[in-house]
């Protein structure tokens, strides 16, 4: 009868877990489902705690994967991307409402705070240096390739030869640098800030810095468009803006540049 007791215990455990999930999603407030770029994780989680109109349920991944989900018919209330191209494309396809630019960021080279093989952009092209970057479909990887395109051809080729991993999102790049799997990685300044001193940033020359702008859009057919709009308003001037600033994001860059 030991097996029977075990079965009962397992079922009870499942029931408890299920009840826990159920109760956490209720509580009167609607669930606002937000699909957001990995780099927004800390800022959005912070903002979510202070957002009064809904319980924010954010999922974070590479912006390109989130956009692909929306193309496949997934309908979050909001889509926040680490660039403006992906929400613009979804807008043109009629899948989201007109996107709004709500934040800016800077691409940097992340290295271990304790130092290492890399202390400048030029070091990345040296033999024996290992680099991680975003894949060519995720915004951080696209920005990185823009930077490389601005380098002299041989330097960019040598740097690319040192790339060991094309990660599906920026969190993957941060993890590879933090674990010492690579010597350096291209990430946003906010990602370095979020490591609490484990990583440090090497700034890129201003002439090479790509314009990193974050776009957000309400998804067509969103269940809670009113709360979604309130979430965007707060990002532009309110608790969301404060959370973004605290996480190290820049104000949205001027449009049309």
């Amino acid at each position, binding site marked *: 009868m030991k097996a029977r007791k075990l079965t009962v215990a397992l079922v009870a455990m499942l029931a408890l877990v299920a009840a826990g999930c159920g109760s956490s999603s209720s509580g009167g407030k609607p669930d606002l489902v937000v699909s957001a770029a990995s780099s927004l994780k800390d800022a959005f989680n912070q903002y979510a705690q202070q957002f009064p109109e809904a319980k924010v349920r954010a999922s974070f991944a*590479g912006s*390109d*994967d989130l*956009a*692909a989900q929306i*193309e*496949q018919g997934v309908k979050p209330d909001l889509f926040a991307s680490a660039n403006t191209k992906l929400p613009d494309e979804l807008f043109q396809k009629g899948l989201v409402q007109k996107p709004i630019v709500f934040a800016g960021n800077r691409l940097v080279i992340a290295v271990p705070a304790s130092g290492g093989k890399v202390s400048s952009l030029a070091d990345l092209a040296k033999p024996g240096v*290992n680099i*991680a970057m975003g*894949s060519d*479909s*995720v915004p951080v990887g696209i920005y990185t390739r823009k930077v490389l395109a601005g380098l002299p051809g041989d330097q960019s080729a040598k740097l690319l030869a040192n*790339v*060991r*991993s*094309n*990660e*599906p999102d920026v969190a*993957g790049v941060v*993890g*590879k640098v933090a*674990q*010492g*799997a*690579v010597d350096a990685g291209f990430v946003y300044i906010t990602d370095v800030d979020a490591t609490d001193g484990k990583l440090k940033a090497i700034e890129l020359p201003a002439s090479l810095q790509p314009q990193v702008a974050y776009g957000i859009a309400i998804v067509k057919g969103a269940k809670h468009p009113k709360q979604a709009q309130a979430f965007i308003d707060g990002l532009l001037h309110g608790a969301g803006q404060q959370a973004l600033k605290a996480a190290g994001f820049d104000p949205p860059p001027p449009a049309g540049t």
Partner: protein
Amino acid sequence: MRSRSWFPPLLVVALCVALVFLVLPVVAIFTHTSPGDLISSLGDSSSTDALRLSIETTAIAMAIIVVVGTPAAYFLATREFRGKPLVVTLIELPLVLPPAVAGIGLLAALGPKGILGNTLDNAGITLVLRTAGVVVALIFVASPFYLRQAQAAFASLDNSWLEASRTLGAGEAKTFGRIAIPAAANGLAAGLALAWGRALGEFGATLMFAGSFQGITQTAPLAIYGNFATNFDGALALSAVLVAVSGALLLAVKFLTGSEVLGGVAH
């Protein structure tokens, strides 16, 4: 009497729900896009590189698993010793570990900052972000499938055969090689097929430990995830290949262990 009337239909309904739920996603992979488009999107270099890498890394992993795992399983099947249940449980643990846990565990053990990181570094061995790292991740997640099946296969052999062989002066090594392995061959092969299927599907541990780079560490499941955003058809095509291969491996297991598959196959 009344209870009989509603219960059997309930069982049928439950089975139908389960069957549709489990089969629909697999069918959808093949019907979402036309077969011609599926085949043509396999020509993409990231797909071909990923398939080649998947075949290579899983083949190497399987070779290592068989060479080390077969004698280890034989030992477990033929010996009794104190703590054996604990050893068996420890060996089986990766079966139920989430892949992400496997990935973080491998990093903590064999990564540059892991407990064996310095030792490996001094020996000039780098695993993270290398093809060798993929093989290590595959062995970690897949070997328990082989070990378990192989142990069961050896354990089910008639002990008197092995003893007869030994008393006839064959020695244990000869008995293992000439008698036990051939007699347990079907069970061993079934374990190998199970392990191979698990290795082909490995995703999380590989991404965390070995990263993702075309031709070096981007296996088929990683390429599916990588292509998902920009090349959905390509991702579907690779998925279709994995479904076919995994299905073939499962059939092999069923055949080797003598289970019926389609009703017509008697044993």
